[in-house]
């Protein structure tokens, strides 16, 4: 048997629809005060879920489908524009 006929191992294709709903883990919810937010982007890179992006007005916008509510974004915000609220 040559190498082209070797049996393949388990292969998983990336498909976001199959992902666990990590937004359901959250018990504290970060809320952006869009008036104070500078749009500096400090919170984008540190977010473990990469859940934060610009909205149409270049302010931080959080995707609550994937946000686990860790609160790192609130800690790094230079303007304290993100507050952690109880998840409702």
């Amino acid at each position, binding site marked *: 048997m040559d190498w082209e006929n070797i049996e393949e191992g388990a292969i*998983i*294709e*990336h*498909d*976001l629809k*199959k*992902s*666990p709903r*990590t937004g359901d*883990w*959250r018990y504290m919810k970060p809320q952006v005060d869009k008036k104070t937010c500078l749009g500096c982007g400090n919170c*984008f*890179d*540190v*977010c*473990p*879920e*990469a*859940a*934060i*992006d610009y909205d149409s007005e270049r302010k931080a916008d959080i*995707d609550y*489908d*994937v946000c*686990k*509510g*860790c*609160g*790192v974004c*609130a*800690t*790094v915000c230079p303007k304290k524009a993100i507050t*952690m609220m109880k998840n409702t």
Partner: protein
Amino acid sequence: MNEKLTKHLAPGHSTCAGCGIPAIVRTVLGATDDPVIVVSVTGCLEVTSTLYPYSAWKVPYIHSAFENGGATAAGIDGAIKALRKRNKIPAGKKIQVVVFAGDGGTYDIGLQSLSGALERQHDFLYVCYDNEAYMNTGGQRSGATPRGADTETTPAGKKSFGKLEKRKDLMSIVIAHHLKYAAQTNVAYLADLKMKAKKAFALDGPRFLLVLQPCTNLWKYPTSEYVRIGKMATETNFWPLWEYFDGKYKINWATENPKPIEDFLKTQGRFKHLFRPSGEKVIAEMQKEVNEEWKRLVNLVQI
């Protein structure tokens, strides 16, 4: 979801809330435009990013066993070279092989395989995210655990103050393999990590990055604090940022007045026993070690 940041690793992975590993992966892989092949050995990143039937990886990814991250990367490098010889890959096209491994898979279990791959001068980048114990299995001590840390296998109590031994000096072991580039960095300094990843990707041959990765669950601190605690590790000189390039050492961040080591220790539950009576002695020893290590590093830079 941020489209730009999720080109390689998508959300939906199951790392703990407040874990820094995904930020390390995104920053490192975001530093290159070349196609990448990711190797990940058993560890936090592997179990959380490939939760069957879902894979958070959008790039070719291979899971290898705990001990053979280096060997798997060497094999991929060999395959790329063979395909190049047969003109299956265009000559000018660079393909980056990146290994992500935890400290258990690097300092301890994967060390011989890493050593072999470094010595054979394979073309790959090895990134070790160092959370200073086997966090994926509940926090057993590893070669990376600092002295005094309370872990599952070195519990602090009346007779013991946690881990008795000093951590392994992995950077010196790696540099002893005559590689071109090795750097120590920290997830709390993502700009520094990105700069070092960029430098590493531009080179050929083996390259190595050691990244400190505070663990919210078993360093025992609130989920929102990894950036602050990571910064504290560097500001106390516990985890200096430095690099080794072509025989020369360079410190990337320094302060004239480093904070006392207590400032770092008191942020974490794994060191809380050191703040009980008779803990001062261990803290003083740790401070002495940190000062000595820093002096050694400064001497290396000056040579």
